[in-house]
């Protein structure tokens, strides 16, 4: 009888403990580093809220993983080191695969496939000398240009890539596909009269992934599984159609 009573109280205690466990799970917060001036991947909408393809995908992933995500705006040249240092858990930014990034971060499964475009004044070809190329600081494009020893002008965000050209500081730019799609919608960019070509170098295209902090290796499996689910249940494609004119996966 004493044993039964103890058992009953043990059961009662565990039952009372359960909601606590539930709260603990609900309180799991993911610190997500994002960009804010990289339309259509990440930008502020008219009301000032963060939106964009990468941010919406991350939102779906958070929903799938049943975690609450808090977004921290940063810039591309900071993001890799900050996530590597554990300041953030996830970099919800389209990262092309580079050896330096791979050494510092874990890569989630690719969430789309990108390519880079060469925008330049007519007649200027990649590899020619005597002009400067605008790239984003910390980008794979910057790494590419530096590796070849070409002259460059760095900007902090994708949204600013046209500025150096407009200001006459640069005569060309290497621009990721999604940013280029956005820039081409702007008359002032089109008016620059730049000629565009697709760059086929492998380090400028291909798989783009979110970065995961090496301090949270368990997140990779969860994020990959969640990504697989949203690709299958149609949520991914709705986000794709919302932000981009064609299927980029």
């Amino acid at each position, binding site marked *: 009888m004493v044993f039964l009573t103890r058992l009953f109280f043990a059961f009662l205690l565990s039952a009372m403990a359960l909601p606590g466990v539930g709260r603990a799970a609900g309180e799991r917060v993911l610190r997500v580093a994002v960009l804010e001036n990289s339309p259509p991947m990440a930008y502020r909408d008219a009301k000032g809220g963060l939106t964009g393809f990468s941010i919406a995908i991350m939102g779906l992933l958070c929903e799938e993983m049943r975690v609450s995500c808090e977004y921290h705006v940063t810039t591309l040249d900071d993001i890799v080191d900050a996530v590597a240092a554990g300041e953030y858990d996830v970099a919800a930014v389209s990262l092309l695969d580079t050896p330096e990034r791979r050494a510092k971060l874990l890569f989630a499964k690719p969430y789309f496939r990108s390519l880079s*475009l060469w925008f330049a004044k007519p007649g200027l070809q990649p590899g020619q000398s005597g002009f400067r190329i605008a790239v984003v600081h910390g980008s794979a494009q910057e790494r590419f240009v530096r590796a070849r020893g070409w002259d460059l002008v760095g900007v902090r965000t994708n949204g600013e890539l046209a500025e150096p050209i407009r200001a006459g500081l640069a005569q060309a730019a290497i621009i990721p596909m999604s940013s280029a799609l956005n820039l081409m919608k702007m008359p002032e960019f089109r008016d620059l009269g730049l000629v565009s070509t697709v760059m086929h170098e492998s380090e400028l295209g291909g798989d783009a992934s979110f970065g995961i902090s090496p301090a949270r290796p368990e997140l990779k499996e969860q994020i990959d599984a969640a990504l697989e689910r949203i690709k299958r249940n149609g949520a991914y494609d709705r986000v794709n159609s919302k932000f981009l004119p064609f299927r980029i996966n």
Partner: protein
Amino acid sequence: MNLSAIPGFHGIRAGRAFALLAACFVLTFGAMVTLLVLDQQRVLEATGHLQEQTVPEIIRYQRLARNLEQLRQEGERVFSAHTPQSRQQAMFVVMLVASHPSVLEHPESAALARETERFLNDVMYRSATDSKAFVTYHEEWQRLAARLSVQVDDVSIQGINLANGDLNEVAATMGLARYKVAAALGLVGLFLLLFLVLLRKHLIEPLQRIDRALSTLSVEQPSPTFQPSAMREIHAVEEAIGELHASLVQNEKARVALEELANNDGLTRLTNRRHFMLLADAELLRAQRYERPVTVGMADLDHFKNLNDGYGHAAGDIVLCALAQLMRDTFRQSDMIGRYGGEEFAFLFPETSLVEAHVLAERLRVRAAGYNIELPDGRTVRVSMSIGLADASTGSLEMALNRADDALYEAKRQGRNRVVQAPVGEQRLLADDL
């Protein structure tokens, strides 16, 4: 289905055959179940592959189809655009789609996309000098757009068809599994049939034989014989039936011996007084019912006390036995002889009148009187007997015997060694008194 009739099974006990059958069944059925489980595993793997590999691949084909459709729409926009800006924008998307890895990884689509991009570029280039270029090339564009549409359909169907491999695998496995289930059921039926046949042959039929044997078991019948059974237990029961029969026979012998002891005199083997009275009473009733003549008699050895005193009781016993034998030899088979007391005997002669009985009694008296009875010590003795007879065709046995006894007394009185008949009138007299 007699197991011992099958060469390989000779000497194998039916119990073991049952166990062997059960083991075979368990093994075979287990193997069938294992095969079915493997089939199930294959189905699970195929559906798993469908979910994990094929469905994402199908989705990839759908996205490619979507991009090719987008390519066609952007091409349309290049032709129908009202401003150079929107034309330029559309052309830019065409370039991106045609260069995107999702299109490039499908060679046919990649080739068509490149052709589309080149064609549109070419028209754009010509439009710079020829304002009618878009009109001139529109027809060619429509052919190209139609090819794009067909390619969209092809890619969609290719994607859907990817599922066929997995589904065919599942269908084939399920088809095979159906045969296996049927085979397993057939096997169960076969084993069940075999089991029933063995059960009938080695259990039910022997039990029926045992039942028949038991219901006809009696001492009059010989001990039942059985074919040697393959079942140890049945064999044991059959042997027990043999033993039961033997003990029945033994009991009957014992019963007969006991009856003999109860009904006969131990010394002379003649019917004892109690049994004689029973038998005689029954015979008297029968005779009186059919109004047949019947006579009773009483006999007593003369001077038997003197014999006992002079020669000893052993000699007296020998004399009694010898005279009993003499009575059996002298009288007919149907006549009843009983030892009534120590040296007193009673007779009943069925179907015999007083006169006829007198002849028989007289014959006995004469033979007894002339009979030299040898004693173990070599001496011989002769013992005469006095006999009284009475008609018993009416009245009770006791009354008849009393009258015979009175006649016997009369014979003793007259000097012994003689036969005296009870007067018939005395009986009538008695009857008249009633």
